[in-house]
């Protein structure tokens, strides 16, 4: 029951965070300076998420040679092919191989 109720609370909070600007600002014009900043939301948040999902509770970040090698290989693959599945195959393979070698 606790798990369910906690999920309800987080669900309401998550919906509110996704809806508030869409619902509250739907009839208003957003200033140009804000619009310029908004184009940087995706690259900044996504790269912050990359580090966040590699972080441990003690503040360390699991970003070693295998991870960096996989990011470079995966980044190059997606840049050339625009194919996410191929990117994952290449990235995971490089990650496993480099981790086995170092």
């Amino acid at each position: 029951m606790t798990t369910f109720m906690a999920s309800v609370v987080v669900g309401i909070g998550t919906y509110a965070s996704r809806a508030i600007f869409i619902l509250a600002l739907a009839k208003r014009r957003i200033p140009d300076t804000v619009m310029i900043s908004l184009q940087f939301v995706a690259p900044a948040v996504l790269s912050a998420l990359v580090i966040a999902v590699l972080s441990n509770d003690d503040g360390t970040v699991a970003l070693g040679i295998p991870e960096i090698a996989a990011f470079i290989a995966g980044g190059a693959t997606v840049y050339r092919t625009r194919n996410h599945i191929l990117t994952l195959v290449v990235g995971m393979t490089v990650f496993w191989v480099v981790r086995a070698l170092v």
Partner: protein
Amino acid sequence: MSQSTSIDRSAIRRGITDALPLYVPAVPFALVIGLAIVEAGLNPLAGWSGSWLIFGGAAQLTLVTLLGSGAAVIAAITAALVVNARHLMYSAAMAPTFQSQPAWFRWLGPYVLIDQLFALATIEAQESDPVTFRSYYLAAGATFWTLWQLTTALGIFIGPAVPDEWNLEFAVPLLFIGLIVIGIDRWTKVVAALVGAAVTYLAAGMPNRTGLLVGALVGILAGTIAERFAR
């Protein structure tokens, strides 16, 4: 048929076919959540309910992991909400596009505004009229939602069988790298991405994963300043 309820069938097909490959990297994430629910000793049905109540993997994973580790319920809820607070920025970024949409869609759309859909919708919004955008968004959102419910439930059954040494959860940051690279069309976005990552790295020790928010905000600021110099 009124304009507010009309649909674009080809946009629906495109939404589904664009969502499917983007969902593949989320499969290990869903399996990890299933595994975490089982390992935490939570009621499987209650743990899975977060899949449709929250519909956000990072927050759901944070919540079940902390609840299972014996953290205070209020602490687990706060941490999960902080993880999902990045959606405030997605909401702000999507608001201009939603201004030309009917009320029912402005209320329903945010429910499925996950990372992957935000990435797809940002691109779609640049070249679509309101009806096409709405059809595409709903089709992709419904695809992500349905697959998420099924694969998190599947994770509860087969998650425990995936060997830890495979480290399949590494597919998640790899996916984000792919989304970043595809979205970069100006050097100023490279600045935003690198600064966002670097600051999050330095702030990784902050409580409740708040370093993620600090890094993202500083990254946005750095991109905006770089844009000023570029003009």
